[in-house]
């Protein structure tokens, strides 16, 4: 019976010793689609759809902010038209011949420009001439607009803004009719000028207020040539040539793996970026280095050392005088337990990635504060991988095998980055930024999770400095 079993065993063993079968083609197709290198991995398609969604989001946001900006401009235009209407009324009243009402209005106008006129009585008796003086004085005030935006006066009354605004719209002319015509012409052109001046308004205000503080004696200085036309020069960011900023940032990040919470890990990255700003939009790229690590275990298979014995591997016989003497040739043989044991030893794998993002976004500046949103694809390339050797003192035991339980990381991974942040100007050319960032990975950073619909994502806070030029 035993012989029969032996034959059965031999039969199967011999037949299956070199048994081969051609596997179906689809197996290799599935295998290569699941491993890095051969397969398409559908990452291109995922990236494509992710990119479309991301880009669409950015464009929608940018469009939304543009629309909000337009609404704000319309409100200002409405105010401007109302203001110009008031100016027209005032001028028409000024042109009326020596009436009490006209005089009172002129006095009011002169009051608006107090500290400028020397005598209100002179104005009361010379209505037309006063009107000219008003224009001249106001033009002389607006002459300072060459340095900054026409809002230069010590007047602290609420009418100051109105006064300054009026002065900025009044051209240098000696003629009443020309003055009126110009006012009307300016009124026609107001919308354009206000629209174009909007983005730089806060900046101008800051500078003008600084200027006013310098006027300690309350007088309005005008070192400009009075005869020189004082056509207002509006500074605007709109449509102007883009500027470039350089950034240096540090980003701590936590990466979450929905498919396996144990893989959640932290990383740090340092990057240098170049940002090109044009009309509120921004385009950013750069190079960063990310440092990540994984905590895990080595699984060590070993066999316990039990002892040794002397194995006789050869016997020779020496013929001596006393007869034939056997000589035993031995070797020491170590004996191990046939049952293998498993132990876990902790280890930490370290990875260094090179990151290259291309981000597109939109942002606005308000005095010292600015905000921005941006997003785009980013590629991370594994440039260094550090796997410490197993830290296991086997002693006399025999290590059969050790295996790092941590899954290997893939070499290249694409992600989509979205961030929204704020900046604060520390100086004319330097800003500090704080930028919460979300990164959505196209596929797992680990090789073992090749078939998953749960994509990893990371949350981080990017802080850095921006240097403007």
């Amino acid at each position, binding site marked *: *019976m035993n*012989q*029969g*079993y032996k*034959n*059965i*065993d031999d*039969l*199967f*063993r011999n*037949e*299956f010793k*070199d*048994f*081969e*079968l*051609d*596997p*179906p083609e*689809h*197996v*290799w197709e*599935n*295998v*290569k689609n*699941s*491993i*890095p*290198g*051969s397969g398409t991995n559908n990452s291109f398609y995922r990236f494509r759809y992710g990119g479309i969604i991301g880009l669409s989001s950015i464009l929608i946001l940018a469009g939304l902010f543009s629309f909000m900006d337009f609404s704000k401009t319309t409100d200002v235009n409405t105010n401007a038209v109302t203001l110009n209407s008031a100016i027209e009324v005032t001028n028409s009243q000024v042109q009326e011949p020596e009436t009490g009402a006209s005089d009172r209005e002129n006095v009011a106008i002169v009051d608006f420009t107090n500290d400028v006129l020397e005598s209100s009585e002179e104005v009361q008796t010379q209505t037309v001439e006063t009107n000219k003086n008003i224009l001249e004085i106001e033009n002389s005030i607006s002459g300072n607009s060459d340095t900054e935006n026409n809002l230069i006066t010590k007047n602290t009354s609420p009418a100051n803004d109105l006064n300054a605004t009026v002065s900025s719209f009044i051209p240098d002319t000696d003629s009443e009719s020309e003055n009126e015509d110009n006012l009307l012409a300016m009124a026609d052109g107001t919308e354009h000028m206000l629209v174009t001046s909007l983005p730089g308004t806060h900046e101008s205000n800051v500078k003008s207020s600084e200027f006013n503080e310098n006027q300690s004696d309350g007088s309005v200085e005008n070192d400009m040539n009075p005869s020189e036309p004082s056509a207002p020069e509006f500074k605007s960011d709109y449509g102007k040539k883009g500027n470039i900023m350089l950034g240096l940032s540090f980003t701590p990040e936590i990466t979450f793996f929905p498919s396996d919470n144990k893989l959640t890990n932290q990383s740090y990255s340092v990057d240098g970026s170049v940002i090109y700003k044009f009309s509120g939009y921004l385009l950013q790229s750069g190079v960063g280095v990310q440092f990540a690590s994984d905590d895990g275990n080595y699984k060590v298979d070993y066999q316990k050392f039990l002892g040794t014995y002397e194995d006789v591997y050869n016997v020779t016989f020496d013929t001596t005088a006393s007869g034939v003497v056997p000589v035993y040739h031995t070797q020491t043989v170590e004996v191990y337990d*046939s*049952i293998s044991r498993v132990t876990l030893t902790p280890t930490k794998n370290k990875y260094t990635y090179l990151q290259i993002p291309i981000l597109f976004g939109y942002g606005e500046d308000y005095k010292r504060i600015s905000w921005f949103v941006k997003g785009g694809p980013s590629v991370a390339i594994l440039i260094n991988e550090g796997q410490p050797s197993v830290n296991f003192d086997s002693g006399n035991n025999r290590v059969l095998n050790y*295996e*790092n339980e941590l*899954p*290997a990381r893939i*070499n290249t991974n694409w992600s989509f980055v979205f961030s929204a942040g704020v900046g604060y100007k520390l100086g004319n050319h330097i800003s500090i930024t704080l930028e919460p960032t979300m990164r959505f990975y196209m596929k797992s950073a680990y*090789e*073992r999770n*090749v078939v998953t619909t749960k994509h990893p994502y990371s949350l981080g806070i990017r802080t850095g400095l921006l240097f403007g030029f």
Partner: protein
Amino acid sequence: MYSEAELIGRCLKNEPKAQAQFYKLFAPKMYGVCFRFAKNKMEADDILQEGFIKVFFNLKSYRGDGALEGWVRRTIVNTAINYYKRNLKYQNDLEIEKADTMHSADNGILDTISVNDLINLIHELPVGYRMVFNLNVIEGYTHKEIAEILNISENTSKSQLSRARQSLQAKVNKLNTIVY
């Protein structure tokens, strides 16, 4: 064609050409292994696919101590074992039929049986018997190892092997009757 060392190196660099060559080199033999462990062709396909994905991902852990084929084979066998364990709760072993005869078969007769016949015989075995028979007789695992791997006692492993042998012996004899 790359040498074995070069092939491993290139596979570790994820070179598609090397990966394809690696697969072509080992897949037929490993598919044979899978086919023995599996219940049918579909299961064999699944085990081979899962096994080779593991092979490629864990190739860096191959230290070159033994033959590469042996390492790949061990990975494939482990995959088959895991596959068996995963699907254990869905298995419904049939009572093995008693051996019709305990007589040994003639060696000359055994030589006439084709490998396909043997595959069919193995596929007819209950899954537990098939696992033990494959692991012990073909792969050379001891009963202790089988007991640890399959979470069964050594005696269970021995008895299952014994019954598997009886069953196969009976089937071979039947086959022999049909042949002659």
